[in-house]
């Protein structure tokens, strides 16, 4: 799999590390109740199909990326810097 990092360009999967569902991760920043956090930490979405997720460009520029990926085919539809993503 290859991910097009908005800063570094297209790179091999081995340069990146995976976090998981982006919506849950973003929600965890604002969540206050234990229940909200439990959902954000343990009950993350894992759909078969398009999924917006967070990746870290470990061996590249160190940017966190939101990657929209089809979990069945690994086709990537969009990549953005997480910092610039506005829901």
């Amino acid at each position, binding site marked *: 799999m290859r991910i097009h990092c*908005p*800063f*570094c*360009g297209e*790179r*091999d999967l*081995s*340069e990146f590390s995976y976090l998981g569902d982006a919506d849950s991760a973003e929600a965890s920043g604002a969540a206050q109740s234990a229940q909200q956090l439990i959902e954000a930490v343990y009950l993350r979405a894992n759909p078969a199909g398009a999924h917006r997720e967070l990746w870290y460009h*470990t*061996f*590249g*520029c*160190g*940017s966190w990326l939101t990657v929209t990926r089809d979990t069945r085919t690994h086709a990537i539809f969009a990549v953005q*810097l997480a*910092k610039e993503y506005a829901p």
Partner: protein
Amino acid sequence: MSAEYTVSSVFAATPQSVGSGRGVVAIERGGLAIAHLAARTAQVQALRARVREHFGIELPDAARRVSARGVAAAGIAPQRWLMLAQDAGEEFVPDLVARLEPLATVVELTDAYAVLRLSGADLRASLAKLVPIDLHEAQFRPGDVAQTVLEHMPVTLWRLEDAPAGQPVFELAVAGSFAGSLYEAVRDSAAEFGFRFEPLAQR
């Protein structure tokens, strides 16, 4: 304490060569002052203007390296750069801090990196064994910068102008503690073409 300190090669103490010594030549870079520059929130335009004014450099938006008057800026992440100055002395980075704060955070990394300058006719074939990125003539131009992975080590590399004979020239920077591992990886990848290494002269 104010005595002089000794600087010796971080790679390998003595000149070494393998085979013909002609395929890839590695030269240890010394005297390079390095600073990490990160724009403060909402200050990037002001920072650009300040850098332009002081150094005559346009901070690149992408993974590019630009230089003027002995100072280079290499884009390594959005709104982050490495500033590199050859033989600019111990005060280069403190001066940079004084000039650019509070538009940017400037942190000294002069001692953090070990840098090799690589050249030679077989350099691309040798680098193909080391880094998973496309360094083809037309794909990775002089001035291009990349951060990637080399045998599990994070590396930053950039291409300089070709040597007069048309051979490519790259510089490869790793964290200083990896110098030995980087050196061995480069030497092994170049062995079939012939390899020569020139360490930093002791001073």
